[in-house]
C-alpha cells in the first residue's frame, strides 16, 4: 500500500476519510453561513434604502434604521462570518492533522448553539434590546450561549490537533488556531468591560475599539489568510513562496493587531499616547501585509490560466489581492492627516467592507466552492451560476467600494475643511448640503447591494440544487466505498 506509485491515492483516500468524518456538521455550518449571508444582504439592502429614503417603512419601530443596521452588522459578522469561519477553518485544521476527526457530535452541537445564539441575538436587536456597543449589539441574554458555543468549537479544534497525526505545523493551522483561541478571549473581555462590569468612562470606548479591531484582525482576517494559505498551493499545485516568511507574517500580525484599534480614537477624548501607539502599530502592519502579498500573490503570479480555470482559486485570489489593497488603505487612513478627514465618514465603512467582503467573504466563497464537492461527492450542478456569482460579487463590491471611498472622502472634506467665500473668509458648507451630497453615492451603494444579492442568490440556488442532488443519490454519497474520489487539484 505504501509503495510510491499508490502514494497519491492513499493520501487522497485519507483526505476523503477525513472529509467523510466531519461531513454533516461542516455542511450544516456552510449552509447556515449562506442563509445568514442572505439575511444580512436583505438587512443591508433595507438599511441602504432607508439611508436615502428615510420615510421608507418608517412607521415600523422594529425596522427603524438603527436597528436594521445593527442587525445587518451582526448577521454579517457572526452569522455569515462566524459560520463560514468555523466551517472552513475547522475543516482545514482537520485535513492538516491527517486523521479522521474525533467527536464530530461536539462540532455539530457547537454549530447548532452558535446559530441559536446568533438568531436570539439578532432577534433581540430587532425587538429593541440592543446595546448600541459597536459589533457587540446583541443583548446580554444572547452572550453566554454565543461565548459557550465558541468555546465548544475552539476546544473541538484543539482536540482535532491533539489527536491528529504528528507532523509539521502548517501556517494555516496557526491562523485557524489563533482565530479559535482569540475569539472567546476578546469577546468575554469586551463583554465584561462594557456590559457586565462597565469600566469607567472612556475606558469603555477603548475596550470597544480594541474589540472591533481584534474581531476583524484576529478572527476574520486570520481565518481568511489561513484558508488562502491552504487553498492556493492546493489548487495551483505550487508550494507557498516562502514558508519562513509565512510564519514571521503570522507572529507579527498576532503581535501588532491588538494595538491598532486605538487609531480609531484619534482626536477623541482619550490620552494621545494610546492613539499614537495605535497609529505606529497600524503602520508597522506593513510587514505582515507585505509577507501575505508576496506569499499569496507571487505563488499564483503568471498562472492566470489556472486562476481562470478554477472558480475556487479565482475567488481566493480576488480575496488575497483585496487583502493587500484594503490593508494599504487602512495604513493610509491611520495617518493623522488622513484620518482628520476620513474619520466618521463613509470611508470607514468602505474600508471595513473592503476587508470583510472583498477579502474575507470572497476567500470564504472560494473555500466553499472547493469544499462542497468534496464533502458531498457531487460536482457543482451549474457552472453558469458559479460564473454569475463571481461576476456579481466582483462588480458589486467594486461599485460599493468606489461609492464609499469617494463619497466618504468628499463627505469628510466638506465636513472638515473650509472653503473661501467671496470675501476670502473661510466658510463651512452647511451640514444638510453635505448630507445631500452623499446621496448619489448612497444610491450607488444600494445598487451595489442589489448586484451582490443577485450573486448570493446564485450561490444559494446552486448550493440547494447540489444538496438536493446529493440527497437523491444518497446511497452513493453516504457510502465511502462507492464514492468516486475527487482529486485535490481538479477543477472545482
Amino acid at each position, binding site marked *: 500500500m505504501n509503495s510510491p506509485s499508490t502514494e497519491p491515492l492513499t493520501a487522497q483516500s485519507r483526505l476523503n476519510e477525513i472529509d467523510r468524518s466531519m461531513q454533516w456538521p461542516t455542511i450544516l455550518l456552510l449552509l447556515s453561513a449562506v442563509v445568514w449571508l442572505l439575511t444580512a444582504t436583505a438587512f443591508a439592502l433595507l438599511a441602504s434604502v432607508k439611508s436615502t429614503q*428615510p420615510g421608507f417603512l418608517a412607521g415600523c419601530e422594529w425596522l427603524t434604521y438603527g436597528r436594521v443596521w445593527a442587525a445587518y452588522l451582526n448577521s454579517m459578522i457572526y452569522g455569515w462570518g462566524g459560520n463560514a469561519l468555523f466551517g472552513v477553518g475547522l475543516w482545514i485544521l482537520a485535513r492538516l492533522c491527517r486523521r479522521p476527526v474525533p467527536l464530530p457530535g461536539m462540532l455539530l452541537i457547537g454549530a447548532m448553539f452558535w446559530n441559536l445564539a446568533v438568531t436570539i441575538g439578532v432577534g433581540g436587536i430587532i425587538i429593541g434590546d440592543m446595546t448600541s456597543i459597536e459589533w457587540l449589539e446583541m443583548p446580554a441574554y444572547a452572550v453566554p450561549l454565543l461565548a459557550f458555543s465558541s468555546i465548544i468549537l475552539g476546544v473541538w479544534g484543539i482536540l482535532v490537533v491533539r489527536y491528529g497525526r504528528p507532523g509539521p505545523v502548517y501556517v494555516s493551522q496557526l491562523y485557524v488556531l489563533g482565530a479559535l483561541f482569540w475569539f472567546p478571549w476578546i469577546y468575554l473581555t469586551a463583554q465584561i468591560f462594557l456590559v457586565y462590569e462597565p469600566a*469607567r468612562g472612556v475606558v469603555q470606548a477603548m475596550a470597544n475599539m480594541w474589540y472591533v479591531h481584534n474581531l476583524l484582525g484576529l478572527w476574520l482576517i486570520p481565518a481568511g489568510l489561513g484558508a488562502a494559505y491552504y487553498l492556493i498551493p492546493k489548487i495551483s499545485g505550487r508550494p507557498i513562496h516562502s514558508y519562513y516568511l509565512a510564519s514571521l507574517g503570522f507572529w507579527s500580525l498576532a503581535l501588532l493587531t491588538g494595538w491598532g484599534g486605538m487609531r480609531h480614537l484619534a482626536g477623541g477624548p482619550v490620552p494621545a499616547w494610546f492613539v499614537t501607539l495605535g497609529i505606529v502599530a497600524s503602520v508597522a502592519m506593513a510587514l505582515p501585509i507585505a509577507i501575505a502579498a508576496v506569499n499569496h500573490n507571487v505563488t499564483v503570479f503568471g498562472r492566470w490560466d489556472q486562476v481562470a480555470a478554477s472558480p475556487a482559486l479565482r475567488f481566493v485570489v480576488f480575496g488575497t489581492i483585496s487583502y493587500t489593497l484594503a490593508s494599504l488603505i487602512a495604513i493610509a487612513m491611520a495617518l493623522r492627516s488622513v484620518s482628520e478627514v476620513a474619520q466618521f465618514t463613509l470611508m470607514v465603512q468602505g474600508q471595513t467592507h473592503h476587508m470583510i467582503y472583498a477579502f474575507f467573504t470572497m476567500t470564504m466563497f472560494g473555500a466553499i466552492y472547493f469544499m462542497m464537492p468534496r464533502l458531498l461527492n457531487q460536482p457543482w450542478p451549474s457552472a453558469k451560476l458559479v460564473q454569475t456569482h463571481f461576476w456579481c460579487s466582483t462588480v458589486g463590491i467594486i461599485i460599493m467600494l468606489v461609492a464609499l471611498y469617494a463619497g466618504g472622502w468628499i463627505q469628510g472634506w466638506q465636513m472638515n475643511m473650509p472653503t473661501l467665500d467671496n470675501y476670502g473668509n473661510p466658510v463651512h458648507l452647511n451640514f444638510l448640503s453635505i448630507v445631500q451630497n452623499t446621496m448619489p453615492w448612497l444610491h450607488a451603494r444600494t445598487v451595489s447591494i442589489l448586484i451582490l444579492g443577485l450573486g448570493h442568490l446564485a450561490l444559494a440556488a446552486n448550493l440547494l440544487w447540489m444538496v438536493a442532488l446529493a440527497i437523491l443519490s444518497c446511497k452513493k454519497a453516504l457510502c465511502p466505498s462507492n464514492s468516486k474520489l475527487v482529486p485535490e487539484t481538479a477543477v472545482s
Partner: protein
Amino acid sequence: MKSLPIVFCGLFATLALSWAGILWQGQKQLGGLQPMSELYAIDPISNAARIESPQKDEPRHPEEPVGLAQQGKAQYISLGCVYCHTQQVRSQGRGADFERGWGNRQSVPRDYIRQERVLLGSSRTGPDLADFGQRIDSVNQLHAHLYNPQSEAPGSTMPPYAFLYQKRKIALNGEKSAGAIEFRDGFGPAEGYEIVPTRRAVALAAYLQSLKLDYSLPEARLPEKP
C-alpha cells in the same frame, strides 16, 4: 502537533500584550478620574487637579445624570442613534468641530465618567451631539424634529420617530392637550387631531437636552466670555 503548548504560549502572549497595554493601562490611567468642581487646586507633588476645600452646595462636573434622562438614554440605545451621531468634540484645529458649533471646548475623558454606557460613536451621518442640549431652542421644536425631521431640517436623512408619539382626537371642546406638539404649516396632523409625545419621547427629549458641555474642567476650560 508536538509544539502545541509552545504555539499556545505564543498565541496567549501576543494578545496579552495589547490586553495589558490598552485595557489594564487604560483602566489604571483613567479608571480613577473623579468629578471636579469649578474651584480646584493643582497638587504641587502629583501635578493633578483636586477639589479645594469641598463645599457642600458647589456643583461637581460632570453632574450625576437624572432619572428621566437615563430612561431617555435607554431609548437612544435601543433605537441605534449611535450609528449616525457621535458624542465627542475633537480638539480645536482637528476637523471643524468648533467651527460647526458642535462645542466650545473639546471633550475630555472626565466628561464621560458618570456614564454607565459611553456612546462616543464612529459615524457622523448626522451632527455631533456631545453639546446638543445647548443648541435646542425649544422642546416643542425638538419633538417636531423627532416626529418628522423634514419639518425642522428639510432634506435630512434622519428617520422619523413617529412611533414614539400618539395621534389623538382633539377633545370635543376643541382644547388641545397640554403636551401636544405645535407644527410648522403643512407638517401637522389632519384637522381635529393632535400629536402627543409618549413617555418614551419625553424621556428621549430629556436625554438629548441633558447633553451639554457647558462647564469647565481643569484640563478643558471653556473660552472666557468676552
